[in-house]
């Protein structure tokens, strides 16, 4: 099956942005060769244990839609700032808002400003097939570069799949680089217009220099036929803050991996997420937080609500190096099963070599509290409303933490809509 992908890469490469750049062609070919050597990860690969990527192997996702599909109104949030729309993996100026000095599409930069992007295309030591394929096929993405001390405001990114032809693929590659003391908020959403299956395979590289602050929210609302995989790599320097929230409601099978390297003291990393699974969805979140340096805090707060025959998973690893004293790393994964046929897996993992740290994890899997359901009923609340109020309460405290009100409200509403449909 890898052959089909390799043929596709060969055919696609001349048309990819930056095809004229020798350094980029070399990197893409090397990535294709590594993919050919490894193939797709299987369930024996620990980091992919709970993911379901069989569909990628069964029939290849090797269809490229043209770049001029007609697209109607897009679901932007009413927030000021640059808006970038990518449709089936291609930047669409006609659908985007103002693109400003800091936030630009990768495809445009590869024509004008390509040398500065060489680092971004190094594979970062990542050997997974998904990242290799992204490198080989990356067609576009957001490049956000914020100079020292500047505030780039709020940037919205929509990753739109037309979903009108089966087996199409979009490999977006984002770069977010905030120099010392810079600030930005990035609001991402993936969404589909049609019902056909497609594969969205994104890589996002984030570099936060000293004292930089990035607020990053993401709503994976792909259609229920889609494969949605993403890898986010974050490097955090001293006093920098990375606050991330992911709402995951879409895709037949989704896998979101986030790796954070803490490389300076007094950093603040907050990773949070809510996964809402129904039908036969498989929603998998994998995090790896590496505290290389001490005196930093990290918090991971993940919730999953699983109904019908869906399966969610959270694997969260915290690594604290020998010298990373005074690290405060907390992790919480709570999971709520709404049906006996649903499944939630949670796997916290602490690997700690320093002796003066505060690290804790808590993981629970449970059902709705029967006593609370009766209490609500005894006060006149009908069963559907009682379930809704308890599930909403289960996820709301995590969503309430989102600093941008418009995003918080959109996510609370999405959760409410999901519940109304399920209960």
């Amino acid at each position: 099956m890898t052959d089909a992908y390799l043929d596709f890469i060969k055919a696609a490469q001349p048309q990819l942005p930056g095809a004229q750049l020798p350094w980029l062609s070399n990197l893409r070919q090397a990535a294709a060769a590594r993919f050919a050597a490894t193939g797709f990860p299987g369930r024996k690969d620990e980091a992919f244990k709970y993911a379901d990527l069989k569909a990628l192997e069964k029939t290849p996702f090797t269809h490229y839609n043209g770049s001029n599909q007609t697209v109607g109104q897009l679901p932007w949030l009413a927030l000021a700032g640059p808006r970038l729309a990518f449709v089936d993996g291609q930047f669409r100026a006609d659908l985007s808002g103002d693109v400003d000095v800091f936030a630009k599409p990768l495809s445009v930069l590869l024509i004008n400003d390509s040398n500065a992007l060489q680092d971004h295309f190094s594979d970062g030591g990542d050997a997974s097939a998904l990242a290799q394929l992204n490198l080989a096929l990356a067609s576009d993405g957001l490049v956000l570069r914020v100079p020292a001390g500047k505030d780039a405001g709020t940037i919205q990114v929509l990753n739109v799949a037309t979903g009108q032809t089966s087996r199409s693929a979009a490999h977006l590659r984002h770069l977010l680089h905030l120099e010392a003391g810079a600030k930005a908020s990035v609001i991402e959403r993936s969404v589909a217009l049609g019902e056909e299956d497609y594969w969205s395979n994104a890589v996002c590289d984030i570099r936060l220099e000293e004292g930089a602050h990035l607020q990053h929210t993401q709503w994976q609302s792909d259609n229920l036929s889609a494969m949605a995989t993403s890898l986010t790599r974050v490097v955090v320097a001293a006093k920098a803050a990375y606050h991330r929230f992911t709402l995951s409601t879409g895709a037949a099978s989704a896998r979101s991996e986030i790796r954070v390297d803490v490389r300076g003291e007094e950093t603040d990393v907050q990773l949070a997420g809510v996964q809402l699974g129904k039908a036969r969805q498989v929603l998998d979140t994998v995090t790896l937080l590496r505290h290389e340096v001490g005196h930093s805090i990290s918090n991971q707060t993940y919730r999953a609500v699983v109904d019908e025959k869906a399966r969610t998973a959270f694997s969260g690893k915290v690594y604290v190096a020998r010298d990373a004293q005074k690290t405060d790393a907390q992790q919480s994964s709570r999971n709520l099963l709404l049906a006996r046929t649903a499944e939630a897996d949670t796997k916290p993992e602490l690997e700690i070599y320093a002796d003066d740290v505060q690290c804790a994890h808590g993981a629970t899997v449970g059902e709705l509290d029967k006593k609370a359901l009766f209490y609500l009923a005894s006060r006149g609340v009908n069963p559907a409303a009682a379930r809704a109020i308890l599930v909403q309460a289960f996820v709301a405290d995590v969503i309430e933490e989102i600093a941008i009100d418009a995003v918080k409200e959109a996510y609370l509403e999405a959760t409410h809509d999901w519940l109304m449909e399920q209960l």
Partner: protein
Amino acid sequence: MLKITDLHVSVEDKEILKGLSLEVGAGEVHAIMGPNGAGKSTLGYALSGRDGYEVTAGSVVLDGKDLMELDPHERAAVGLFLGLQYPVEIPGVSNMNFLRTAMNSIRKYKGEEDISAGDFLKLIRAKAKDLGMDAEMLKRSVNVGFSGGEKKRNEMVQMAVLDPKMMILDETDSGLDIDALKVVSEGINAMRSPTKATLLITHYQRLLDYVKPDFVHVLADGRIVKSGGPELAHALEKEGYAAIAA
């Protein structure tokens, strides 16, 4: 108002209520007293329709409606209120949200419009004030971190807001100090009206010093074994259940 006839209730296949009959008229306050294990709490739960309390025989009619035909939330909607011995904590759900959802659920059942946010706020604030509950507590999660007395006071606020016609209060006095007991009693007394009725389920006579019952019944081994006026409660207190129920 409430007519219970030959009620048999089993919990996990063990018969707890063995033919209980009781009639509570409009405007009346009845007290059911009995030793531990007599089936007092089972009666409250069975009347409100809790899962696991299986009615094997008998009937319960509230204002002409057969309660056994209704789900728990429907029983509340037709005017039944059960004050719990151990009110449940619900993290993440504010008292406000809880009560507003309850009220609108009941209104929906009756085919009425939702109460407006403004009217609801006025109502709940007034009732909380009457019962001495701090308005800040209305924003807090239902019963989370509340003391025993605060939980029972919260039950009274819920009862006042939902305005039921048949109130069943299960050991509402248990675990309360004298001040909390007075608050709860005032809450119950404030609800006394010729169109409502109250059934107090209690182990001790103490509550009955504050809420004067019209009738007192003794429950033993799943049946009412003796009925009388308020004086029966005093006799029980003095002589004990064993002597009276024998």
